[in-house]
């Protein structure tokens, strides 16, 4: 199970808290997912109300506050400081958006904010792209977790660049890696885990499903399946068939018109 900044978490699934039909359904989804961490936005989408924060705390799992909706270094740093006070945690999921249509991470601002926050004692979970140079800069800035995207937030497109995500895994074998955003289906989540990622963060795929509770359970099962598959050392794909039973020496059925 993943360890983020010396804290062991009992599940590889981080689940977001926005966009559910009701807080009651959100709580049921968290239960069904057995999620290890709840992410919460301090700004718009997840909400900043005390009532809602009380509901999040009531989930009784570690909270990872995020800076969703921030567009600049300064905004993100201020939001992180508020989050630290409100949730009494040094954890911050750092998210700085360049463009509202793609919700693409502003990786330049991200590196700068990650350094400021790490120097200030924060434990930063940066939402980044799968670019190796950016990931390296973030580690240099003090990040001990990386959260590359699978696809744009809320798009449900799965892992757009499997090669890139595999490269990040290979280049940072000792850094916990979480695929954050873009997951639409359990198979996407399983694939991330099969690549050897330590966790998956998702929200929309569960919250906006017709039955969020059932989808939460499906995601939990898929993540567990992917995690086990990676540990089991999967076979390599190959171009030619490789029969699971030897054919040499078998009775030559079918020759001579047995039918």
């Amino acid at each position, binding site marked *: 199970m993943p360890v983020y900044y010396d804290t062991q978490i009992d599940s590889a699934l981080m689940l977001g808290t926005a966009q559910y*039909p*009701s*807080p*009651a*359904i959100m*709580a049921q989804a968290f239960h069904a997912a057995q999620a290890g961490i709840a992410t919460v936005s301090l700004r*718009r*989408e*997840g*909400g*900043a*109300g*005390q*009532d*809602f924060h009380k*509901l999040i705390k009531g989930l009784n799992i570690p909270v990872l506050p995020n800076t969703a909706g921030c567009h600049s270094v300064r905004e993100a740093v201020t939001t992180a400081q508020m989050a630290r006070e409100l949730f009494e945690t040094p954890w911050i999921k750092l998210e700085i958006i360049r463009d*509202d249509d793609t919700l693409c991470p502003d990786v330049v601002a991200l590196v700068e904010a990650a350094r400021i926050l790490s120097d200030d004692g924060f434990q930063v979970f940066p939402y980044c792209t799968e670019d190796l140079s950016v990931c390296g800069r973030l580690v240099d800035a003090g990040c001990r977790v990386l959260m590359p995207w699978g696809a744009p937030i*809320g798009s449900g497109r799965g892992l757009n660049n499997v090669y890139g995500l595999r490269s990040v895994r290979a280049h940072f074998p000792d850094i916990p890696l979480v695929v954050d955003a873009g997951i639409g289906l359990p198979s996407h989540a399983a694939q991330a885990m099969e690549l050897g990622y330590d966790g998956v963060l998702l929200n929309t795929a569960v919250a*906006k499903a*017709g039955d969020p509770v059932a989808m939460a359970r499906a995601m939990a099962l898929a993540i567990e399946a992917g995690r086990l598959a990676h540990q089991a050392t999967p076979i390599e794909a190959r171009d030619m068939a490789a029969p699971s039973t030897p054919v040499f020496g078998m009775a030559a059925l079918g020759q001579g018109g047995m039918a």
Partner: protein
Amino acid sequence: MTETTILGAGVMGLAIATELTSRGIRPRIIDPAGKPGSHACSWRAGGMLAPYCEGESAEPVVLRLGRDAADWWQAQGTEVIRRGTLVLAPSRDRAELDRFARLTESHSALDAAGIAELEPELEGRFSRGLFYATEAHLNPRAALLTLRDRLAEQGIQIETEGTPSGLVIDARGYAARDQLPDLRGVRGEMLVLRCPEVNLTRTVRLLHPRIPLYVVGRGDGIYMIGATMLETGGKYRVTARSAVEMLNAAYALHPGFAEAEILELGSDARPAFPDNLPRLRRRGSTLFANGLYRHGYLLAPALARMTADYLTTGKKPEFMDEDHP
């Protein structure tokens, strides 16, 4: 029947008063404002009677309890406009339309020609839509004032102060939060525009992954545009961001809104329980009727009926919640 006092002259309080009066119980109503007005979140509601569209995110019971709401309001003398709901999405957000269709019922699919036939001014702007022919809307402020007037005709005035007597029905919405710890506020922001150049004849919803919008006509070129859904608790004013986003979305729906005059920017807290469903809750001699969430006009008639049934026959309502915190 013992004496009954209703606290709050918003949609919940007035609907209960109306339903009780029709059954021969004459309640007192206390509201410090003395009349329906902007202190109640129902004053800023959209007034959509759209049980099928709400099924996108609401539990099936909302559809069941809301189906008769239009008839109830009409029976109280309120003008109910029964022209259905048109649901649209820009072509790049088609997936939103597919999702909405999958999660709701009683709609028909429209192509560009079908949309233009219903709303000629939207011709050429949208290629696909959904039409919910049986849905309706009303003007919330007119509806509340009609209830108030009808009660006044029967001698029931809204008192601005006084001590509640007998059984107290607390229908104060979010203001009852001091007594209902699991009640929360879901913030909604709305705008009222005057735009005679725009002629939309029915409620239009524009789907968008971040900024879903609805436009409800109020007649005379006036439109209500709403509404955000933010888990941010109490009352605040409209943020610049919400205003900009809603106006952008309105402009995307119909460019004529660019020339609109902004008559009003409003924000309030919808009272909601954790499951976003309403309920009655008895505490001693107080009966709380609350948690209408975003379904004030849709569910107030059903909750008022349950309240009246409970008081007249002792019948336990479907949404009675006897738990004690």
